[in-house]
């Protein structure tokens, strides 16, 4: 396995059955209906790289992301991390070891943080579940250290998620991913719900951590400026298909697909202010 293929996604497909119930179909004489949310999606990501998926709403980005982390079964296709297939058969210990290496961060961190747990316990949980920490005390101590790493105060560990702002919650979600000693983090619209000022803080943090821990990212965003800023390579999705995969700079300079061109041209541009 070469270094350029730390993550390898091959011919991923996902079909959703959106048919009406059988009886309705018979009465209305309608065929079954399917949504092809992902069709033959293939790409690979090198270790320490940030690969981004862009595309309009409904193009299939989140569907691919969920299959890559194993939250959604694929209709067909394979995902390999460091040469190990996550779609293949594993015993429980192997599966647990794999799960640990892949973590996901969502647009709404609140939905993914248990509201009844204190933040320190939320961060300590994967360490205990995965056997990374030997004892509760060790896990709690580590949680405090991780809060520092993501720019919060260890004392914040005593609070509950609702006591934090959106940006702080995203930091907590990142700390939890680090707690699992994740190597590959899938980020689905991690800053879309945040103010630009907070977005800048989170994006800078993601970059710092990538350098510090050698993290590999799959970044999903509909904000092309964010994607341009963060990623070395970009895949463009359109109606469930990956229509273009290109090195980031080249993609913006010289998109091969007219669809990509349209996406780029549609980006509202702050330099317009000085032109008008």
């Amino acid at each position, binding site marked *: 396995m070469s270094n350029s293929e730390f993550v390898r996604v091959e011919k991923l497909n996902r079909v959703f059955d959106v048919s009406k119930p059988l009886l309705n179909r018979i009465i209305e004489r309608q065929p079954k209906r399917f949504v092809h949310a992902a069709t033959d999606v293939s790409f690979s990501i090198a270790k320490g790289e940030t690969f981004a998926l862009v595309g*309009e*709403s*409904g193009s299939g980005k989140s569907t691919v992301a969920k299959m890559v982390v194993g939250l959604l079964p694929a209709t067909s296709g394979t995902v390999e991390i460091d040469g190990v297939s996550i779609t293949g058969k594993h015993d429980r210990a192997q599966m647990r070891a794999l799960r640990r290496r892949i973590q996901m961060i969502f647009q709404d961190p609140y939905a993914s943080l248990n509201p009844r747990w204190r933040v320190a316990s939320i961060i300590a949980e994967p360490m205990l579940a995965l056997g990374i920490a030997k004892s509760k005390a060790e896990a709690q101590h580590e949680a405090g250290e991780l809060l520092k790493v993501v720019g919060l105060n260890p004392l914040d560990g005593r609070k509950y998620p609702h006591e934090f*702002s*959106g*940006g702080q919650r995203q930091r907590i979600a990142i700390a939890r991913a680090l707690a699992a000693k994740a190597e590959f983090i899938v980020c689905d619209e991690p800053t879309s719900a945040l*103010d*630009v*000022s*907070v*977005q*800048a*803080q989170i*994006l*800078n943090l993601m*970059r710092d951590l990538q350098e510090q821990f050698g993290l590999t990212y799959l970044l999903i965003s*509909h*904000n*092309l*400026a*964010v994607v*341009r*800023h*963060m990623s070395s390579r970009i895949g463009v999705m359109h109606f469930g298909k990956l229509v273009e995969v290109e090195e980031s700079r080249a993609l*913006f300079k010289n998109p091969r697909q007219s669809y990509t061109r*349209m*996406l*780029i*041209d*549609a*980006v*509202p*541009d*702050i*330099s*317009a*202010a*000085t032109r*008008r």
Partner: protein
Amino acid sequence: MSETILSVENLRVEFETRRGTLVALDDISFSIAKGEVLGVVGESGAGKSMTGAAIMHLIPRPGRIAGGRILLGDQRIDNLDRTGIEAIRGRRIGMIFQDPLTSLNPLMTVGDHLTETIRVHLPLNRRQARARAIELLEEVGIPDPAVRIDSYPHEFSGGQRQRVVIALALCAEPELVIADEPTTALDVSVQAQIIKLIRKLCSTRGTAFMLITHDMGMIAETADRVAVMYAGKVAEIGKVSQVVGAPLHPYAQGLMGAIPSLDNEEPRLRQIPGSMPSLTALPDGCSFHPRCERAMDICRQRAPALLGAIDHKVACHLYEREEVAA
């Protein structure tokens, strides 16, 4: 000088709480001219939505206007009673909110929404109202409007639903539209279409817009002037070329610097340290001082006033002295 549609003068909004009086808006002043788009930007909690709510008499309890005046044309509207403001809401001032799904009733067709609203505000019969509704859908760029008028909201895409909401806001041909984060939930491609639509309405109908958003790209492409808000105050206001292109206030500079752009190759984004203070813990002096790299002694003691020329004002001690000297 062009005709002023809205002027807000020294607006103050307070919340009476057990812990004392919270000042949500403090001495807010701005105006919007006919056919003009005023962008309102700032981090969440800055008071953008509250400003829109104050104009529409929609401040949540126990908040209230504690000072200042709001004028629509030359009519004072901040002191109107309920029937008075209801005659203006939807008729002379249209509203667009962030989430198009919550502003549309899922059980009503798009046509029902439009004709009902049109008939509340304009003296048209059912058939005339329907014809007007189809025109409006056409105007906001819904394809095949004569057919789509009978569709339900869920049968439209997110962008199309937002266009329907815009069409609703335009039903009664209002002089002013207050749009609170109208494109936040939408794709860039749809956003670009909405931007075009707003600009078209300004030039063809002379509609004035108050465009509340935290998307600076949207402001740069759409607004004529922009107000930057921070902790319930206006930090800087002026032409978009000045405030977005060459901001003076350190907070405005920080905001603009934090935006990733397509041609910026810097590995790190500029960031403003810390976060916006809550209303219960507003710092003394300039409320931005704990986050400001250029804060001076005076900044901790005295709040700066919003000063400058008519078309570009800034509230910052860095510029106050120049002002006195000039």
